[in-house]
């Protein structure tokens, strides 16, 4: 037998699969560069460019201003207080859901998720109706509660962030090994001790993850503080005032960078903890199934009802207000606010639905495309795609929106043509929520046995054939899930798109803001109700589609 030595580097032939792989990685990568990296670069550049040249001048200017430092302080005050409170409340709620046998779980869960279906300013709007100067409480009891300011933002953002924390913590509490609990009990540990030594450590990753998520969305939330913040200013509102009000792009960019830092740290912290998470549940684990215990279950039911009632009251009062003639002076019921005879009428709602549909379609193609590229073509370029794909998790919506303006609103730019179209809004939404959609799709792709790919290729199929005939049919519930996720976010998002709307592309969520701003509270409420109804209606349709095709166990709300 002759021994043949060949060079380790083989000639790369032009093969259909290689071309396909290069195309998928190339296209998704290029889009990520253009729509994530370029806008971020534009912000950084603007923040460092001063009339005297490149330098830290802008930062020095603002960080020596007492007002600016006050705003930074406010932002952190809100961020930290809301995060701690939300974690405690949501942990209890998720615990009641997963570890008790209280009745009414599905209804309570639905109520807890309500804030996800509406723009972030709806909580503040509800709070105005409830606790505002002319709110239900002050009018009924003759009190003079002033909700505008820190407490208004605090309450509104706790409600806004609640479902996000709840979803993560529910997942964390869902997995538990009954054997550990049984051994703890047999060793004589009481409930409190078991909670401290077993439950809490078992969910610390979920807690940290929820903490980072809540902190990020709170410090970058724009809707609630702008409506109910009064004179209490936070960075997200300041960036809007500076850019939209005074066209002060350099200060906007500085705030953008300042907002980028804690968000980026939070995201990095989450990844850091994720790496330190050991699998606590193995294939031999026995799932923990709570046993009914009347007393305990009733306590948790009472707790959950209080929480759900608080959330529901903010939503319900908005719905109610949308039907009364003139809040709070004339409370007779009417449908006249649904006539939308002010401003642009109902038009923005249709624009929003159009944007949301385009967002969902683009996301299905490009977000799932990026997940597929990263999953199926491992390479250096693939790792770059991965980095860019999850980078937006650290980029607040407002910062991304501002970046789009700075990067694309310059005539002569290759992509200038998308400015002033609904496309730029849809694209911004796609890349704003890119990380979540990408991780969702990646998780699902990983669950598909690699053997299918291999079996398919040994049978003579190209990668493209495999995707079309095997992969897509297997992951379509997730594709639908990704579509629904992006549709929902596109319908309710305010922060990223606030800079991108033009008179010809008005959006529903922004209309609620404008109507509220000019004091047309009833119309604002009606518009908000329309958004919620659209989102929930779309969700029900998708759920129905899943049910009819016999798919079970797929949750569309994330």
């Amino acid at each position, binding site marked *: *037998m*002759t*021994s*043949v*030595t*060949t060079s*380790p580097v*083989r*000639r790369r*032939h032009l*093969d259909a*699969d290689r071309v396909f792989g290069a195309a998928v990685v190339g296209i998704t990568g290029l889009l990520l560069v253009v729509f994530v990296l370029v806008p971020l670069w534009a912000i950084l550049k603007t923040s460092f460019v001063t009339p005297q040249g490149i330098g830290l001048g802008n930062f020095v200017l603002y960080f020596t201003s007492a007002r600016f430092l006050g705003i930074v302080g406010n932002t952190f005050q809100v961020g930290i207080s809301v995060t701690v409170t939300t974690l405690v409340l949501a942990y209890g709620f998720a615990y009641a859901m997963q570890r008790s046998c209280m009745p009414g779980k599905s209804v309570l869960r639905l109520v807890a998720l309500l804030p996800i279906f509406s723009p972030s300013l709806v909580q503040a709007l509800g709070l105005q109706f409830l606790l505002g100067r002319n709110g239900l409480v002050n009018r009924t009891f003759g009190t003079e509660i002033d909700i505008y300011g820190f407490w208004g933002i605090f309450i509104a953002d706790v409600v806004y962030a609640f479902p996000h924390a709840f979803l993560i913590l529910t997942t964390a509490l869902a997995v538990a090994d009954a054997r550990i609990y049984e051994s703890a009990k047999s060793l004589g540990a009481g409930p409190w001790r078991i909670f401290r030594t077993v439950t809490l450590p078992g969910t610390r990753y979920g807690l940290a993850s929820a903490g980072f998520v809540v902190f990020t969305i709170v410090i970058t939330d724009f809707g609630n503080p702008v409506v109910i913040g009064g004179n209490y200013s936070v960075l997200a509102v300041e960036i809007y005032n500076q850019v939209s009000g005074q066209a002060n792009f350099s200060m906007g960019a500085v705030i953008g960078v300042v907002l980028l830092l804690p968000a980026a740290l939070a995201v990095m912290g989450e990844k850091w903890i994720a790496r330190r998470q050991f699998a606590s549940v193995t294939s031999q684990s026995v799932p923990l199934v709570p046993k009914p215990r009347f007393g305990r279950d009733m306590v948790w039911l009472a707790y959950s009802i209080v929480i759900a009632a608080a959330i529901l009251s903010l939503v319900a009062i908005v719905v109610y207000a949308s039907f009364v003639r003139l809040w709070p002076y004339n409370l007779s019921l009417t449908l006249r606010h649904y006539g939308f005879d002010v401003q642009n009428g109902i038009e923005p709602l249709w624009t929003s639905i159009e944007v949301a549909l385009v967002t969902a379609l683009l996301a299905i193609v490009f977000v799932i495309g990026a997940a597929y590229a990263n999953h199926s073509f491992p390479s250096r370029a693939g790792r770059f795609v991965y980095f860019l794909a999850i980078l937006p998790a650290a980029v607040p919506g407002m910062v991304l929106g501002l970046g789009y303006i700075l990067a694309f609103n310059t005539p002569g730019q290759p992509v200038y043509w998308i400015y002033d179209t609904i496309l730029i809004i849809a694209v911004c939404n796609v890349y704003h929520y890119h990380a979540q959609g990408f991780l969702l799709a990646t998780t699902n792709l990983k669950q598909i*046995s690699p*053997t*299918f790919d*291999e*079996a*398919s*290729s*040994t*049978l*003579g*199929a*190209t990668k493209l*054939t495999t995707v079309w*005939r*095997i992969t897509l*049919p*297997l992951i379509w519930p997730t594709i639908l899930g990704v579509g629904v996720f992006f549709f929902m976010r596109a319908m309710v998002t305010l922060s990223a798109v606030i800079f991108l709307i033009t008179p010809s592309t008005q959006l529903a969520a922004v209309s609620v803001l404008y109507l509220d701003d000019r004091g047309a509270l009833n119309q604002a409420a009606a518009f908000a109700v329309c958004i919620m109804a659209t989102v929930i209606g779309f969700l029900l349709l998708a759920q129905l589609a899943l049910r009819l095709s016999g798919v079970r166990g797929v949750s569309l709300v994330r």
Partner: protein
Amino acid sequence: MYLSLRDVTKRFADVVAVDHVDLDLTEGEFVCFLGPSGCGKTTLLRVIAGLEELDEGRILLEGRDLADLPARKRNFGVVFQSYSLFPNLTVARNVAYGLECRKWDRARIDARVGEMLDIVHLRGDAGKHPHELSGGMQQRVALARALAPEPSVLLLDEPLSALDAKVRESLRGEIRDLQKRLGITTIMVTHDQDEAMEMADRIVVMNSGRIEQVGSAEDLYWEPATRFVGQFIGRLNIIEDPALRDRLGAGGGASVLAIRPEHVSVGPDGMFEGTVRKLAFLGNTMRLDVETSGQNMEIEIHGRREPLTVGDTIRFALPENRVRRLAASPA
């Protein structure tokens, strides 16, 4: 030679999974890659299939180098360990898949699918989905799917190891019959020596990425080339005790002295003496663990004899023509 491997090497990071393997297969032959887990047998099969790129060496099919052919262009049929049927397609569509990729016309595909399902006795299940079938049926569909496009080589990656013992047994025969009938060159990976001995024309015993020995089941059993092969195929006593080695005339040499348990002859005129430490009655065989001057000796006795108990002292002989001198590792 139909299929030739020349100096085939595959590394993962710093681990050499397949280490300079040379092998030739004649057309229509059934060859098993046998070895413990991690010995590189599956990697070698995957390299042949084109699912892994090789780092060194060549694979030749009728003299043609396959290096630049991706898996989908090699026309090799592959059956995987389990769960490789496309869950979204019916049995018939699974079998038709490779034919559709080859752009056969519809009528021809339908005829071929029917024919293949007849061969594996699953015609009645054509419209079912994989999850409606038992594990054994799924593997028969996988076999039909792999064979439908008339592949030049059939590659089986532990196709039976996920199945129940009973099903495994009957499928062994079925696969072997099918292979003979179609005359298709076949390579099967297995860690089960019974499976390999029952099915293969030739067995390739692998260890740490290298081939230890190639031969028929009988060759390997009677003439193991290395200590590893001897111990992997059947049972083997390695005679390590210096006193025993001395009396067998081996002295302090490097060669490994070994004897199979059934070749130790028990009887009053035996040269050696030992104490029974463990015994197991297995029907046609009695298996004893005997402690003798500093080492353990496994002994098998066939046929009826007077009862033994733990603690008994017995005498036995190590017939010279049965003691093998083995290499410690392949040459």
